[in-house]
């Protein structure tokens, strides 16, 4: 239904941060002094508008509001209108993006205080917020695509924020290129929709996707899955996510943990009307999610870099969401629920890691931490909230959301469910390891490092996020959010799980407890060396190398690609260039031979003349005789 009231102005949500980015980028150094304040203000304003819009939406009968803006593309039978769609799903995302985004903007004021590029940083962050809001608010796949590419650009700019570091510049290029691979899938899906259905708007595709052949719908689903894999760091396009941690820590928190990387989950849940028609593609989604959740957990166990452990855990948690989204109507709401909870506790922990780095001269090696709980009490307490939330300690965020996913997975597909349960145990292990190495055990600080608590502007956002990690799950208890999302995700038919929900929760808690205990015995009780041990098992070695994702890509994509282009170049040089240059050389050789006739001797020219005349005469005679 068309929008009225504040919802009609929901385009302001996108316009404000976009204007902020424009002012900061075009204003240049003149805005250095107040640029960070403007950048933060636009996002906070968006959050307030989003909150009011959501309240208005909650009071409406029909929970889906369209805002028609303008004609975006009009060519022949292609008519794409730019418009926004405000429904429970986008509302949840708007609040997550602007809410967590506001906190991270505030935090960044302190974190980036000494960076000469702070204004540029806020400009890019604003650009990201605007693009991400467009991604979740657009009412067609084309609008989603514009936002999708916008966040890709912002992600690239922010990973390479410290572009003078070769590692950051390389990581940014890697992220951009691997995202392109996924984007090809999304692009092809949009092309397919247009060629088969003639429309790309959600309502149009929703109305007519049922008329397509089964194979086409499956292809559509798999192409969308490829797009989701690229953006969300899912197997087999996961290799860019750990490297993306080269960016400033608030970026890792906002983009590569809380919001942008969850766009793949949004895409699948938003396209649920397509996935409802193809159980094959849905199964593929669930399997990809399961593989990634185990891979991410594995990587998280082996890393010593605090941000890379969190990156592995991000992959793993998004794997849970993708798994839930692959379970169809049973799982969509839980995927979004977990996404929201993950947004809180992961942003909390990333910002906490940033706070730790702030106090330890930007050291990221956990083997150089130890016993930081006394030096940084606020960071410790808030981080602990995030930790308890991610491992699923009863009462915290992860307990409510992850249990629901495990429970649903167990009742839908036992194998995937058991894998998810195993993943929960491993999560307990590696997060406990991180906690122990960072805040407990003995001091292993570098000689010139004097850990200290971060300023208020950084700790207050941490406290807010910690409170959300503790209370978010309680406030949004799955019943409420499932009801709120049901206009979009559909109502799941009631099914009895194989075991009572309470029993599954108990099992999950026990599995996590085993993981925690294992970490205590393997890490907490032992002496931790300041350098990583050289002799490690193959499993640890594989985890340290991101499960050889880069080597795999090199072997399967890069090397064959190089050979192929090498072959093409050789063909070009040998056959094409050779043909042209050979013709040229033959002609110039021939003319070189003919040129010798021009020897400068007048008498030889005279002889040629005579011979020519004789020849003409002879010809005339012959012709006359014939």
């Amino acid at each position, binding site marked *: 239904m068309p929008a009225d009231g504040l919802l009609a102005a929901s385009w302001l949500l996108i316009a404000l941060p976009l204007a902020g980015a424009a002012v900061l980028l075009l204003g240049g150094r003149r805005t250095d002094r107040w640029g960070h304040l403007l950048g933060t203000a636009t996002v906070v304003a968006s959050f307030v508008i989003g909150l009011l819009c959501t309240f208005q939406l909650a009071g409406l009968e029909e929970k889906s509001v369209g805002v028609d803006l303008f004609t975006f593309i009009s060519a022949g039978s292609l008519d794409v209108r730019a418009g926004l769609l405000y429904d429970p799903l986008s509302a949840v995302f708007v609040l997550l993006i602007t809410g967590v985004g506001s906190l991270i903007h505030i935090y960044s004021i302190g974190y980036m205080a000494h960076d000469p590029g702070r204004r540029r940083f806020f400009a890019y962050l604003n650009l990201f917020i605007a693009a991400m809001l467009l991604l979740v608010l657009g009412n067609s796949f084309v609008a989603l695509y514009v936002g999708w590419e916008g966040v890709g650009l912002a992600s690239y700019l922010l990973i390479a924020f410290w572009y003078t570091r070769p590692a950051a510049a390389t990581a940014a290029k890697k992220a951009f290129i691997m995202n392109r691979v996924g984007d090809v899938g999304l692009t092809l899906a949009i092309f397919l929709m247009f060629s088969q259905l003639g429309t790309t708007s959600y309502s149009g595709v929703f109305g007519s996707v049922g008329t397509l052949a089964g194979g086409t719908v499956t292809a559509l689903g798999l192409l969308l899955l490829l797009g989701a894999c690229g953006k969300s760091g899912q197997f087999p396009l996961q290799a860019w996510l750990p490297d993306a941690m080269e960016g400033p820590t608030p970026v890792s928190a906002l983009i590569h943990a809380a919001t942008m990387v969850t766009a793949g989950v949004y895409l699948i849940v938003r396209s649920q009307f397509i996935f409802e028609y193809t159980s094959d593609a849905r199964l593929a989604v669930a399997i990809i999610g399961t593989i990634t959740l185990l891979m991410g957990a594995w990587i998280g166990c082996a890393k010593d870099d605090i941000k890379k452990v969190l990156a592995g855990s991000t992959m793993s948690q998004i794997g849970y969401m993708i798994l839930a989204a692959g379970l169809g109507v049973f799982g969509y709401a839980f995927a979004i629920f977990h996404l929201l909870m993950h947004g809180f506790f992961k942003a909390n922990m990333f910002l906490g890691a940033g706070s730790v780095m702030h106090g330890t001269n930007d050291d990221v090696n956990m083997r150089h931490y130890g016993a930081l709980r006394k030096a940084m009490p606020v960071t410790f307490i808030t981080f602990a909230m995030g930790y308890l939330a991610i491992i699923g300690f009863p009462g915290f965020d992860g307990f409510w959301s992850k249990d629901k996913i495990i429970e649903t997975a167990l009742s839908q597909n036992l194998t995937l469910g058991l894998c998810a349960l195993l993943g929960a145990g491993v999560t307990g292990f590696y997060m406990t390891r991180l906690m122990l190495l960072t805040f407990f055990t003995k001091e292993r600080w570098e000689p010139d490092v004097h850990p200290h608590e971060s300023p208020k502007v950084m700790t207050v956002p941490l406290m807010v996020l910690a409170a959300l990690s503790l209370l978010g799950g309680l406030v949004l208890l799955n019943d409420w959010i499932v009801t709120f999302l049901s206009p979009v995700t559909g109502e799941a038919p009631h099914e009895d799980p194989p075991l009572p929900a309470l029993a599954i929760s108990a099992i999950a808690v026990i599995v996590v407890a085993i993981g925690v205990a294992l970490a205590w015995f393997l890490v907490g009780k032992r002496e931790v060396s300041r350098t990583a041990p050289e002799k490690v098992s193959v499993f640890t070695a594989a985890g340290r190398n991101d499960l050889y994702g880069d080597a795999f890509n090199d072997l399967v994509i890069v090397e064959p690609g190089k050979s192929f282009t090498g072959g093409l170049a050789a063909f070009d040089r040998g056959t094409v260039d050779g043909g042209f240059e050979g013709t040229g050389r033959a002609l110039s050789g021939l003319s070189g031979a003919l*040129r*010798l006739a*021009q*020897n*400068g*001797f*007048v*008498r030889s020219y*005279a*002889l040629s003349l*005579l011979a020519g005349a004789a020849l003409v005469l002879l010809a005339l005679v012959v012709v006359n005789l014939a």
Partner: protein
Amino acid sequence: MTLTWYLVLAAILFTIGAVGVLVRRNAIVVFMCVELMLNSVNLTLVTFARAHGTVDGQIMAFFVMVVAAAEVVVGLAIIMSIYRTRRSASVDDANLLKY
């Protein structure tokens, strides 16, 4: 009266001229041989003009003479200047304009 004698004479003169141009190196001799060829052609033109009872051939012969006179002026001047710079009148020595 037959044309044959005149034409054979003209052919002989032309051949002498042509052979002279081809085999002699002295530019003056080559030049005279060219004149010989031109005049053998003139003889042919006049012969046929007489045989046909028209004056076309004779007019052509006059043209040839005029052109030959002009050619002599230019040609001798070139030979003179080449001789002055190279101290040689051999056509084989003036072979710089080549490939």
